[in-house]
């Protein structure tokens, strides 16, 4: 059985269950305003540019089909990728989990003799906690994506896959820069252009004086060994071209079979994610080219639980994810709780299915329930991942896991079994219906109910049971 992502390293598990963490975010009015504004803006932008594409549904089908094909022959494609990367002058490393990946990257950086690296925003390195591992080895990682830099300077955690600082507004960002950015102009205002210029001055020094860069990858083409990063700011391109050594850490699911397949994803990704027709910067590189760009290229292929996801025939769809974050932007739960409540670098609907699968469902048992199953995520997903079905599947996995680990069934399991039994025995069901009228004893608005039913009365009245059920009416008519 393939192993899951190890405990004690990386950022896939939260310290507290979702409902507890969510309660804190829900009480933060500023956070809810920031999130509500940002997600509704990006939703509208994205919907407008998707409407322009007459074959959007066919593109989604194509993206979904390419990903399904990729997953069906992942080992073969990864070997093909390795052969192509090596032939182009790169080196390929295989990392079974976060611990191994961090060690490989740290050793590679240490071998160059540098004590500072610059980073292209990367979910994979966030997932494995690479920054912390580098710092522990005396190496300073500098994030160069603007939003990621804001999070790093603020000693904060990212709360969105694409817009890590979505939970911050510009006044908060100004304060972070004033407090944490070395040599910042003290008369800084909260104008976006002024803030961006300050970050640019800060980052230029890093770009020109740092010899090693670490990136993620959006795609890797098996047939040619080409890697691709798409971004909006150009800082990523600086990282990918200026240093002597480039180390890319990539989840094994990011491989695609052919160069032509990129055509589909480069149409789907920007429209679904940032609401742009095309992302401003698309960088691609294949191994090394003498005299141009990094002269030493390493590709670290990361498993960290992905093989376990692949082994689950329902859940494996989660590996189709191209990290566009469209599901976050349409999710009514994410919009109100923000990303931190999910406790993982992968928040929102995709995080609620991916994180519990990477860690094993018991390590993130509250996440599959962090959804009302409204289905907006499924409709928004550019590669048609059926997130609601995976959520329901994982809930059943959790119940099964709980059952095998505990001698006594949970109170919920007892209730559910009793309810199913009752509903399968007509006289008992009819008696229970009559019993529902006893609910009047719960108080006029149901405020006397025991947990978990008391959750209902946080903000709603209970319906008053009618004097007669439908079936009683039917029998008497």
């Amino acid at each position, binding site marked *: 059985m393939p192993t899951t992502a190890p405990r004690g390293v990386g950022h896939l598990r939260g310290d507290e269950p979702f409902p507890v963490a969510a309660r804190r975010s829900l009480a933060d009015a500023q956070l809810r305003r920031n999130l509500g504004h940002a997600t509704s803006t990006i939703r509208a932008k994205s919907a407008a540019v998707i409407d322009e594409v007459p074959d959007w549904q066919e593109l989604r089908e194509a993206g979904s089909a390419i990903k399904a094909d990729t997953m069906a022959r992942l080992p073969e494609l990864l070997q093909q990728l390795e052969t192509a990367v090596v032939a182009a002058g790169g080196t390929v490393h295989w990392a079974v989990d976060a611990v191994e990946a961090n060690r490989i990257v740290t050793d590679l950086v240490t071998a160059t003799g540098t004590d500072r690296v610059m980073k292209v925003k990367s979910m994979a390195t966030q997932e494995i906690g690479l920054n912390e591992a580098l710092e522990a080895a005396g190496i300073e990682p500098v994030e160069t994506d603007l939003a990621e830099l804001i999070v790093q300077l603020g000693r904060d955690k990212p709360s969105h896959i694409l817009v890590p600082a979505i939970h911050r507004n510009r006044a908060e960002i100004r304060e972070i820069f004033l407090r944490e950015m070395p040599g910042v102009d003290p008369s800084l205002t909260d104008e976006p252009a002024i803030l961006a210029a300050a970050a640019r001055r800060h980052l230029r020094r890093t770009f020109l004086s740092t010899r090693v860069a670490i990136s993620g990858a959006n795609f890797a083409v098996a047939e040619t060994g080409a890697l691709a990063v798409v971004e909006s700011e150009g800082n990523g391109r600086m990282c990918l071209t200026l240093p002597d050594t480039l180390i890319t850490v990539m989840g094994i699911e990011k491989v695609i079979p052919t160069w032509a397949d990129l055509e589909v994803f480069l149409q789907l990704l920007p429209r679904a994610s940032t609401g742009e027709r095309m992302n401003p910067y698309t960088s691609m590189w294949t191994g090394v080219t003498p005299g141009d760009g990094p002269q030493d290229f390493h590709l670290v292929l990361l498993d960290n639980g992905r093989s376990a996801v692949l082994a689950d025939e329902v859940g494996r769809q989660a590996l189709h994810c191209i990290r566009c974050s469209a599901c976050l932007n349409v999710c009514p739960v994410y919009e109100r*709780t923000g990303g931190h409540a999910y406790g993982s670098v992968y928040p929102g609907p995709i995080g609620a299915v991916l994180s519990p699968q990477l860690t094993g469902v018991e390590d993130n048992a509250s996440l599959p329930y962090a959804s009302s199953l409204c289905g907006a995520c499924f409709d928004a997903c550019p590669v048609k991942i059926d997130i609601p079905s995976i959520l329901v599947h994982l809930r059943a996995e959790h119940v099964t896991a709980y059952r095998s680990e505990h001698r006594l069934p949970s109170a919920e399991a007892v209730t559910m079994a009793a309810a199913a039994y009752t509903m399968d025995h007509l006289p008992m069901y009819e008696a229970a219906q009559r019993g529902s009228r006893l609910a009047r004893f719960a108080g006029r608005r149901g405020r006397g109910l025991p947990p978990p039913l008391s959750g209902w009365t946080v903000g709603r009245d209970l319906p008053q049971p009618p004097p007669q059920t439908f079936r009683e009416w039917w029998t008497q008519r």
Partner: protein
Amino acid sequence: MRIALFVTCLADTLFPEAAKATVRLLERLGHEVVFPQDQTCCGQMHINTGYPDDALRLVRRHVRTFAPYDVVVAPSASCVGSVRHQHALVARRAGDERLASQAEEIARRTYELSELLVDVLGLTDLDAYYPHRVTYHPTCHSLRMIRVGDKPLRLLRAVRGLDLVELPQAEQCCGFGGTFALKNADTSTAMLADKMRHVLATKADVCTAGDASCLMHIGGGLARLRTGVRTVHLAEILANTEPAPAPAGRAQRKTDGVPA
């Protein structure tokens, strides 16, 4: 046409007016409604909470109960969605291929009320009369699970006397989500608060939908705030006629000071 009513456990137990209205409406249109008495619950709550094994017996019961009927109707998009998209999965998960194919057959003959009226019976004008300002909440499962589209709106637009007002951000979930409302009560309440804000912004007297469950949630919130806005199932509006008006609202709301 002979139509079997799949009443749903929620309408049977707590919202019989929605089910009675469905019967009255279909009989008024000249159809024979039968009520297979062995039915109880489709098992959606069990399936969505992680208990497909417990739901299996309810899927069996549902299949056994509805196998003899050619057309089945339910006043709930959510329960129809479960029959269509979950029953066969639950059966297959248990290795019962025969049950799965029976469930698929029944699913093909099972319609949500607006689907039956518009697609099967070919009607949009039902000669209904409902002189109120009404806003329509398209429940998530109507919208995205069984895709009823604008059928309920077409039916509502044909109701005489009815002033239909558009609900802002109508497509956003009300936050019910079955056991989600209990397990994530705070998030659910936050979603409900926004939904209620939008309902109140329409200045409607009545908020309607095709699912008693979502209406129970929204109505429970509106009653708690003593807004005076009633929640009424789509079937109750469509069943209402000028010569034979349906009983207005539910008894509970009267105690909350509903304007006449």
